[in-house]
């Protein structure tokens, strides 16, 4: 080989490598949404061909997606579904609802175990799960739960009321090392007293302890629970619905349960599939539970395996997996034309927001104390900052329309309570200028405004690093504010790493004036846990009496009437648009690709499609052509 041909070869190789570089550079934004546990950073792989669905502007809309899979073709008997967990960290393997904390464990658990109650599209418990519930007519604080007779553990033992009670006892035990003990439990009569007795009396076993006063096991399949306070929130996710198999865990020390082989190696449940084998951190195989209470599953089994975000698309194209637990939305535009999968979509239960620091957390009183002299305390200033930013542009430019302008603090993922008619504060820089002029923020010669006392005004903005879009988006906001004369600077001149960010925001670092965060919202619409006076998660530290009043009314007795509750929450949403302690920036879409061979599948809540119904049309997943 001569020198020239060698260098040609070298050049060609370099080109190939460069292409690979380009293909890998598109990283998902991981704007560190709290609570979801982990954010997936993905890198993008090849794509080919034109985008068939793509419109001229290259934008998509969540309205074009359905959350039900189209059924095409005849189901075959059996078949094994391949399910991908998209993560760059192995799953923890705490495979029991009572002990888990990671989202990936939850994804696995969903296949082989389930809660006693299911919920509808408005996240209210229904009576069509493994148990039914009924509120007592004489005493509204008493609920009676009846477990379906056909519900059995995978080993054939019946799921009993004892098991359900046992879960309550274990979680309330001081040695319990999970994170589930909280208001859901303390709201039950006698739980706190039950917990106390272990602290006074070491070595006391659950067997010998005084039982929880508020839980009565009527018979094998019936349990009565007395709650201290019954609010509409109780039936949207505040009941602990996961029993713990007493015949297995009964003799174990509470502290040893979460690390026991019964949780990690041979987990048990009563769902449509049973665990066959676990390869720690990478895969789980499941076979069907013929004795499943809803009926025998169509599939023979399910294989769940961890796949790295950088190869999701390849795995889907090549039929390595039928579906994944989460798909990096930013990889959608390049792969919308994959022929072997159908993309399902829905509005994610999450939103991104900008918060204003308006006070401090009072540790002793356990409440947020607003500071009337805070830099951001002027309402006009906050309203103006909302008017100054164009969030639809952010959604279009950075997310191809798969994120869009947020209007109120109850996202459209809660259709019953999200106020469609409330436009929030629209992009209107003139209005922003007007509001600022009105409040006395005078424009200086340098193009920046001073505060009403004539002092220089510099607003410090904390934003999280992660993904490619974090920095340009933060820059965009700062520029938009500069347009209306506000001098906004990045805290420390850079983006903050996830842990540092939340540490500083949580501890009310006086250097932070505004911050950009994100929340995943629970199924319970009640905003108290995020924006209430007594919530540590209310990082704005803003509270006022009107807000307290509205939030309380939203969970009052009258609020059992849905219309009344809607009114209250509409009023609250409007009040937040007026006060702007925080404003939503973008809502987001969650997309989920599913192989065409899969039938009877839907994403989202209240679809009345269950996992045992899933079927496939051929033995192997379809492959992209």
């Amino acid at each position, binding site marked *: *080989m001569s*020198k020239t041909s*060698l260098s040609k070869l*070298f050049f060609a190789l370099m080109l190939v490598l460069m292409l*690979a*570089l380009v293909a*890998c550079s598109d990283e998902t934004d991981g704007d560190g949404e*709290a*609570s979801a546990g*982990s954010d997936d950073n993905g890198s993008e792989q*090849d794509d080919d061909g034109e985008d068939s669905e793509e419109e001229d502007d290259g934008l998509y809309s969540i309205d074009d997606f359905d959350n039900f899979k189209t059924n095409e073709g005849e189901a075959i008997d059996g078949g094994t579904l391949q399910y991908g967990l998209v993560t*760059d*960290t*192995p799953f*923890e*393997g*705490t495979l029991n609802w009572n*002990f888990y*904390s*990671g989202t990936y464990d939850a994804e696995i658990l969903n296949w082989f175990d389930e809660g006693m109650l299911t919920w509808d599209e408005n996240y209210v418990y229904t009576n069509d799960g493994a148990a039914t519930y009924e509120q007592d007519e004489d005493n509204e604080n008493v609920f009676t739960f009846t477990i379906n007779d056909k519900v059995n553990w995978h080993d054939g033992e019946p799921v009993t009321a004892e098991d359900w009670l046992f879960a309550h006892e274990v979680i309330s035990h001081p040695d319990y*090392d999970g*994170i*589930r*003990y*909280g208001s859901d439990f303390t709201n039950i009569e006698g739980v706190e007293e039950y917990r106390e007795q272990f602290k006074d009396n070491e070595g006391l076993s659950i067997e010998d302890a005084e039982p929880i006063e508020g839980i009565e096991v009527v018979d094998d399949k019936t349990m009565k629970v007395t709650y201290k306070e019954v609010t509409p929130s109780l039936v949207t*996710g505040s009941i602990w619905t996961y029993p713990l198999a007493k015949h297995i865990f009964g003799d174990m020390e509470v502290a040893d349960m979460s*690390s026991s082989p019964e949780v*990690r190696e041979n987990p048990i449940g009563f769902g449509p599939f049973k665990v*066959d*084998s676990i*390869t*720690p*951190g*990478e*895969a789980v*195989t499941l076979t069907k539970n013929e004795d499943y209470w809803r009926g025998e599953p169509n599939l023979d089994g399910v*294989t769940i*395996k*961890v*796949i*790295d975000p*950088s*190869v999701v698309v*390849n*795995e889907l194209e*090549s039929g390595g997996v039928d579906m994944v637990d989460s798909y990096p939305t930013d990889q959608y535009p390049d792969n919308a034309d994959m022929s072997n999968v159908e993309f399902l979509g829905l509005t994610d239960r999450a939103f991104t927001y900008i918060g204003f620091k308006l006070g401090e957390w009072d540790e002793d009183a356990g409440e947020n104390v607003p500071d009337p002299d805070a830099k951001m305390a002027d309402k006009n200033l906050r309203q103006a900052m909302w008017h100054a930013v164009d969030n639809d542009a952010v959604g279009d430019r950075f997310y191809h329309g798969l994120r869009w302008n947020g209007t109120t603090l109850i996202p459209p993922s809660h259709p019953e309570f999200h106020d469609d008619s409330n436009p929030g504060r629209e992009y209107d820089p003139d209005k922003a200028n007007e509001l600022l002029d009105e409040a006395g923020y005078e424009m200086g010669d340098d193009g920046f405004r001073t505060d009403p006392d004539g002092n220089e005004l510099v607003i410090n903005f904390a934003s999280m690093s992660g993904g490619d879009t974090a920095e340009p988006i933060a820059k965009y906001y700062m520029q938009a504010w500069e347009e209306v004369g506000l001098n906004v600077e990045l805290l420390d001149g850079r983006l903050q*790493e*996830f*842990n540092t960010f*939340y*540490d*500083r925001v*949580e501890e009310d670092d006086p250097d932070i004036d505004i911050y950009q965060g994100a*929340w995943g919202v*629970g199924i*319970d619409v009640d905003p108290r*846990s*995020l924006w209430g006076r007594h919530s*540590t*998660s209310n990082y704005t530290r803003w509270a006022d009496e009107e807000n307290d009043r509205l939030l309380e009314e939203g969970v009052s007795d009258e609020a059992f009437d849905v219309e009344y509750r809607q009114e209250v929450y509409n009023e609250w949403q409007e009040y937040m648009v007026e006060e702007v302690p925080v404003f939503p920036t973008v809502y987001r879409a969650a997309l989920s690709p599913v192989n065409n061979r899969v039938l009877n599948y839907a994403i989202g809540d209240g679809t009345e499609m269950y996992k045992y119904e899933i079927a496939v049309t051929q033995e192997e997943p379809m492959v992209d052509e």
Partner: protein
Amino acid sequence: MWKFTVRRMLIMIPQLILLSLLIFIMAQMMPGDALTGLIDPSVDPETIEQQREKLGLNEPWHVQYADWVSGAVQGDFGQSFRFKMPVTDLMMERMINTFWLSLVTLIITYIISIPLGITSGRYNDTWADQAITSYTYIGFATPLFIFALVMLWIFGFYFGWFPTGGSVKPGLEPGTFEYILSRFNHLLLPAISMSLIATVSTVQYLRNDIIDTKQKDFIITARSKGAPESRVYNRHILRNSLLPIAAFFGYELTGLIGGTVFVETIFSYPGMGQLFIESITLRDYSVVTATTLLFGVAAVLGTLISDIILSIVDPRIRIK
């Protein structure tokens, strides 16, 4: 020799104490803790606080350190907060994966690099040498995480010759022949990807040393004695040129348990490298300290082994 080894071992003790202290203090200085990541408004803040208390995260660092040392001396590194299992078990699980991957990588690396290095050194400035040298330059310049992705794409997805992730086909019975075969099959692609990059330095060292040795006086002597060319190369030159490689062998051994983050992540292969990084990002302190300490011990031991090997192959550098 023995004296030397024992002395080295004794020096290790203060080294390790200092190391553990540094690791511990640095881990404490990281912002956030294992519970910061759990920001979830539906979890009671009091519960989180009680957990912190229970985990001893609110104690001053020297109290925590004392606790940790007393456990570590007995081989108990505590519980991983995230995995809710003893750190030692967790590390064993991952170390086995990493060990096999690294071992296969190491073997493939030597299989590829030694013949290439010898060819390149013996026939230097021929086209074969140039081809090999070009390969090493490209190898030097190619980042492993991209190379591994490209390899995975070509041989895993496009041709479908290798499995694309995991350490074994899900659902096989451990211990069976099929299981072992599947494990080996899963190892191959990541191992080949890593070795193709890892060989380059070995090839270069070997090549340079052979070229160097070729011109030494004793080689000329050997040749003038009439020793056949193959004997000159295999006995005289090679033995001397393998010195630096032997020296590196000790370090390579430490690599056996260290693992690599990129390859493990791309191939979804749970190993030590991944465990280490994720324990840092998720602030799983007990795992961070234990893994760093383990890596530290391995590095110190690796140096020792390297020195011992060197003194065996080359009597000149034996320390008195």
